[in-house]
């Protein structure tokens, strides 16, 4: 899968926690404007893979290239600058902040003024710019009417929308979605499907998801992890009929 | 040479007392994951209760026992009335992480004012049960006295006793299980709330011994405004941190190390470093080995 078209290319990633091998020799590529799924049974290493890409877990070995350049293993706070944004499992919003403030945080890299101008209240244009960007991102996932609400008071589906807006506001080239459909009802899942196909024109997307309907319908390609290894990869149709996948999910006698 | 021996013995004695306070702090930390800054006040209260007992009974050892029981009762009461409510109410929210710390500071203020109200004013005196005049070797007199020897012995006995309780008895097993994994302990049928109360009670009794021995180690005089008790708390905390906050043995090693180092600094560098030396030691430990001497990696950001 390694082509010039690759946006993110992780090679031979190995991670061990103590004696436990969480990832062994994982290769994963996400091409430009591609929607890629990462699935597997509980404890297969999906979240570890996400955390490794995001610099939260440091791998024992392996390389990561982004846009064709060796990116090392980036520090977590540098991801946004690099052009990678991620939503967290569950919600991951800051409950004490308002919705708009939550989204503005994701746009921080566009801020131009520093502490001094903030001290004298001379940052109003900057703030307005961030606010506008946040507003626009919120409109993409929802009407911006909830922007003044406290994030902690939102319903679960609304929180998930805001979390996606916070990722989108940084104009990522690669969007990592960690279980975006978890806890959502049928209507919201439909909305999510539509949003992902909309976004796929603008950016690449890597999804960890248990909700198979979502994965199978939105993904161009799927990687299946089990015991920290990629046991299968390919189109949704190929993967769902791969005996190795069926065994991994349903058990030995399937 | 003689001075060296003296300095070492002084360090071991005060280190033994710090170790007791550290044990007391570790017991609370392990049972509820809270640093109880009110422990200085509790130890002082227990000491006053011992002092009060001495007015009726003419035995330091009886007073010590009464103080231990009182210390245990006070500590258990605090756990039941304050900590349970606190941990239930403020487990989330903006200041969830610091709420217990602030609450124990408030408690310290209340305790300190209350004992000042009861025993304030004049200095109080507890005559040490044993002589504080040093042993003599040939023509030299050591600072090391029968009382200091007794202090070290008591701390040694208490450490062995506490270790036996924690390592060998079923209450100790419950304590450890509840500390490491409250959820699994519950699933195994351990009444975690009661176990926590027991941990606090043990801590209160240990703190009471620390308080009385601190007074007996000096000239016996103390007051409600004793700076020594604030220092005892901080030394105990630092000793506990040096030991890694989790381990009883670590607390004792931390206490002794702190006592000996401080003693040498005061003797050979400057005695005006009394307040600042422990602080410097704490910072050094936190920078060089953030998990403490016996601590495990990763526990520091708890």
């Amino acid at each position, binding site marked *: 899968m390694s082509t010039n078209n690759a946006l993110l290319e992780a090679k031979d990633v190995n991670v061990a926690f103590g004696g436990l091998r969480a990832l062994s020799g994982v290769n994963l590529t996400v091409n430009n404007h591609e929607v890629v799924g990462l699935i597997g049974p509980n404890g297969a290493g999906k979240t570890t893979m996400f955390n490794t890409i995001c610099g939260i877990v440091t791998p024992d070995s392996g390389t990561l290239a982004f846009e064709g350049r060796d990116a090392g293993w980036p520090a977590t706070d540098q991801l946004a600058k690099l052009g990678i944004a991620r939503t*967290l499992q569950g919600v991951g919003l800051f409950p004490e902040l308002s919705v708009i403030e939550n989204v503005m*945080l994701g746009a921080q890299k566009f801020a131009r003024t520093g*502490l001094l101008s903030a001290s004298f209240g001379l940052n109003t244009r900057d703030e307005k710019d961030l606010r506008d960007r946040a507003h626009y991102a919120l409109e993409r996932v929802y009407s911006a009417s909830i922007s003044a609400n406290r994030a902690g008071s939102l319903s679960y589906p609304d929180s998930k929308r805001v979390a996606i807006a916070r990722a989108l506001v*940084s104009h990522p080239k690669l969007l990592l979605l960690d279980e975006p459909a978890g806890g959502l009802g049928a209507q919201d899942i439909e909305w999510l499907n539509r949003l992902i196909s909309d976004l796929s024109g603008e950016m690449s997307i890597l999804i960890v998801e248990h909700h198979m309907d979502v994965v199978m319908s939105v993904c161009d390609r799927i990687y299946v992890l089990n015991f920290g290894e990629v046991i299968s990869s390919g189109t949704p149709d190929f993967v769902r009929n791969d005996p190795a996948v069926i065994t991994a999910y349903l058990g030995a006698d399937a | 040479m003689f001075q060296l021996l003296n300095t070492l013995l002084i360090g071991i004695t005060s280190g033994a007392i710090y170790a007791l306070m550290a044990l007391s702090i570790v017991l609370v930390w392990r049972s509820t994951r809270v640093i109880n800054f009110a422990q200085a006040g509790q130890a002082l209260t227990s000491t006053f209760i011992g002092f009060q007992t001495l007015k009726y009974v003419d035995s330091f050892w009886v007073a010590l026992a009464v103080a231990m029981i009182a210390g245990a009762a006070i500590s258990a009461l605090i756990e039941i009335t304050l900590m349970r409510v606190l941990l239930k*109410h403020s487990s989330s929210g903006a200041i969830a992480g610091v709420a217990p710390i602030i609450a124990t500071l408030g408690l310290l203020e209340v305790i300190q*004012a209350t004992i000042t109200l009861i025993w304030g004013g004049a200095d109080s005196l507890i005559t040490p049960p044993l002589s504080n005049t040093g042993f003599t070797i040939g023509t030299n007199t050591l600072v090391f006295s029968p009382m200091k020897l007794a202090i070290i012995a008591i701390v040694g006995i208490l450490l062995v006793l506490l270790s036996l309780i924690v390592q060998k008895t079923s209450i100790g097993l419950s304590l450890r299980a509840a500390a490491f994994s409250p959820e699994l302990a519950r699933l195994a049928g351990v009444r975690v709330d009661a176990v926590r109360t027991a941990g606090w009670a043990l801590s209160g009794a240990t703190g009471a011994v620390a308080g009385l021995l601190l007074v007996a180690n000096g000239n016996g005089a103390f007051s409600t405004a004793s700076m020594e008790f604030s220092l005892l708390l901080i030394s105990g905390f630092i000793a506990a941190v040096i030991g890694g906050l989790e381990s009883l043995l670590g607390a004792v090693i931390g206490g002794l190390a702190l006592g000996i180092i401080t003693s040498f600094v005061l003797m050979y560098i400057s005695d005006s470093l009394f307040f*600042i030396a*422990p602080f410097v030691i704490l910072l050094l430990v936190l920078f060089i080995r953030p998990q403490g001497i016996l601590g495990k990696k990763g526990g520091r950001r708890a």
Partner: protein
Amino acid sequence: MHKLSNKVRILIFIVLGFLIYLLSNNVDELRVYQGAQVAVFVVGIASIILLTGYSGQVSLGQGALLGVGGYAAALSHLHWHLPIPATFAIAILAAAGAGALLGIAAARLSGPYLAGATLALAVGLPSIANQFTVLGGEQGLFFDVGFPPASFGEDFTQYKWFFWIASLATLIAIFWLQNVMRSRYGRTWKAIRGSEVAAELAGVNIARAKILAFTLSAGVAGLAGALLAMTIGTVSPSAFPLALSFSLLTGAVLSGVTTLGGVMIGAVTLVAIPEIVGTIVNRIGATEAVASNLPHIVVGTLLILTVVFVPNGPVEQMRSRRLKKGSSL
């Protein structure tokens, strides 16, 4: 949260200043002096709100940072004969420097470790004064801001002068703090307090943000220290005891540590409770021991109750109740 425009805020602060001015002309000496105390506490508490309420780090040693500010102001006044505003600036810078150092240590620590380290600092730092003769030992140093200008007239008292200086400094400090807290820096701190991982993913450098919070908070504390030194006329180790750190923390919790909105509540409570309790005790004729200890019991109990039942403070409590009722703004 309602966001007022800067112009409106400046206007409000000017009006506040005018009200304070009117007030100072219409109350007696004691009240004026207490007013200056309130101003000192407001600044000190605000420094804790920035640190604990915003960035989520706890400092039990804020009193020591006030001490750094107080000594810096006194030294620069005694040795360099700087004008008063400049001594305040030195106080802010010196304390901020100390805060930055502390912040570097603090960025590695959290929870009980940070609390213990700052507590040890609060006990240890004041005793440094005894180490250096230049700091004046137990007696400390004088810090005399001088008499009020003669043009204010004969009636203008020294206390009133303190009150004016303290109030003006406080208004400026709070205005500045509000600016910073409303900016992306305030947002960043609140985000860290919520979740470090999520903040990092949003591009926040956690260590840098924490050190910045410690530095700015210490600078504000330094100003409070200089003001405190002004009101008592000297700086000495006993002026910055452990109890001062605890008082400020208490004031911050009573104010509601997550917002500047209630900062007056804590400051006034700290100044008023001893007096109110004292009056009551005298009325019912209790002993002096009761009179001097009851205030501590009341304050301590209040602190515990606040932490347990209104951990975010009275102002936030009211605001969230209003929000729950449905109005979204």
